Structure formats: C-alpha cells, structure tokens
C-alpha cells in the first residue's frame, strides 16, 4: 500500500509532534504501528468507516496514544481515504481525543472539505508520499493519485 498525505494532515501532524509536553509526540509512532500492522483488506474494510462506496472508503481509525498510555478510545483519530481498486491511501487528518489539542467529531461539511482538498492537491501534484515503515518520512513531495496520472 502506498501512503500519501495532504497539507491539512501534515499541518495537524506537525502541530501534535511539537506538543511533547501534552503527550502527543508519540503520534508518528502510533500511526505507523497501526498502519504497518493492518493488512490491506482490513485497512479498507475496518468497521470505523465514514463513507463506503464501491471504489473507495473514508475511514476514521481509532488509535491509542502510547505516549500517554491511553487506549484507542481516548487516543488519536486518523481520517484517511483508501481506494478499493488500487493500493493507495491518503491520510487526511489526525487529531487527539483528549488534551489541549482535542477536537470534536468532524461534521459532514468538514469531511467534504478534507476530501475536496485531497482532490485539488492530487490534481496539482501536491500530495506527499510517505513511508509508514520509517516514521512517516517523506519519499516524494509532488505526488498525485492514480486517477490523475
């Protein structure tokens, strides 16, 4: 599976990584652990789905916060889009469920905005490809999805 990120994801991720005092700095490790340990079919068909279509899914994955020893119900929420036809997933947003940066559940309008951003960034070749086996290290900075190639 190839993983890409949008600018909103990168911004929220960087903000959390800086908040080590709040216990969020484990976010990279927690995302990588979850994504690496999930088989592709589970990544697509987990029960934490927000949108479900034949061609793609939008998933809200519940992750633990290992930095604060919080289980997944109190840890992070990772929103990602995943294709069912190609081995590609786009990380759209990450937010913690507890603490100073905690966010309320996203509305349909916010999901819509995140997805529209992904569409626009893919068209403009502005997605970043990341390596989930290496702490979300960037592999390329001018990527687009298969449909835009």
């Amino acid at each position, binding site marked *: 599976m190839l993983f890409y990120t949008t600018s909103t994801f990168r911004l929220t991720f960087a903000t959390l990584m800086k908040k080590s005092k709040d216990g969020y700095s484990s976010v990279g490790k927690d995302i990588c652990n979850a994504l690496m340990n999930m088989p592709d079919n589970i990544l697509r068909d987990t*029960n*934490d*789905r*927000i*949108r*479900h*279509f034949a*061609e*793609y899914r939008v998933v*809200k994955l519940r992750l633990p916060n290992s930095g604060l020893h919080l289980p997944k*119900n*109190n840890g992070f929420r990772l929103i990602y*889009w995943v*294709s*069912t*036809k*190609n081995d590609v997933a786009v990380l759209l947003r990450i937010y913690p*469920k507890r603490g100073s940066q905690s966010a309320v*559940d*996203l*509305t*349909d*309008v916010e*999901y*819509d905005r995140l*997805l*529209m951003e*992904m*569409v626009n960034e*893919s068209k403009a070749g502005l997605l970043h490809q990341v390596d989930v086996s290496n702490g979300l290290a960037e592999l390329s900075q001018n990527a687009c*999805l*298969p*449909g*835009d190639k």
Partner: protein
Amino acid sequence: MCTCIVEIKATYTEVRRQTAEVAQQGFDIDKYLDKVNVVCKKVEQVTDETNKLIETVRDHFTEFDVQETTELLAHSTPILILMDQLHRKLKESPLYPGLKTAVENYCDCVSDFQELCSDLQTFNIDIPRNEKCREVEELLRKLA
C-alpha cells in the same frame, strides 16, 4: 473490585492500626466503603453494558439503513441524557472520592457512545443528504 476501593481499604486498615480514636472513625469509614462498593459495582455494570452495546453497534456499523439509524439515534438521545445526569449526580455525591476511577471509566464510555452516535449520523444520514458530498463523490471515484 475496582482499584480505588482496594486503595481506600488499604488506607483504612493502616488508619485503624494506628490509634483507637481512628478505630472509632473506622466504623464510619466501613459504612462509607460499603456504600462506595455497592455504587462502584453499579457504575462498572453500567459501563460494561454500554461498552458491549458500543462493540455490537461498531461490529454492524455499515449494516444499518437510514430508518434503523434514525431509530437507534432516537433511542440513544434519552440514554445519553440519563448518562449525563448520572455522571453529574456521581460527581456531586460525597462518595465521589471513592468512585473516581469507576466514574472516569464511565465518563470515557459515555464519550465513546456519543462519538459512535455522531459517526452513525454522519455515515448514514448527513453525508447521503449532503448535495456537495455527492459532487465530490464523482471526483473521488475517478481518483480511485
């Protein structure tokens, strides 16, 4: 038995050991702990039952249709109101110091239940009714 009760009982034993005066006070603490124990078990029971409900709904998350979701949300609203009332009562109760852990777990479970209801609403009701979402849908299908 939850950790908070064990801790309180350990503290209580220590206090009784020290002075006769504290032993007299221990009688009151005994009654207090009994009450805490009973209420704690009830709170844990509610938490367990709610967690079971959450797991069941999550396991069948994508199988609910609009009507079933609407019914489930209609039933969940009064439950959430009751849960909130119970939470406030517990926090105001003089038993609260002995129930803190159980109440915190209960509170997390209520928050999980709220999140689940919100996700179900988004998945089955809000997004299908949102015209803009349908416009994006076509673009997303091409991307996939």
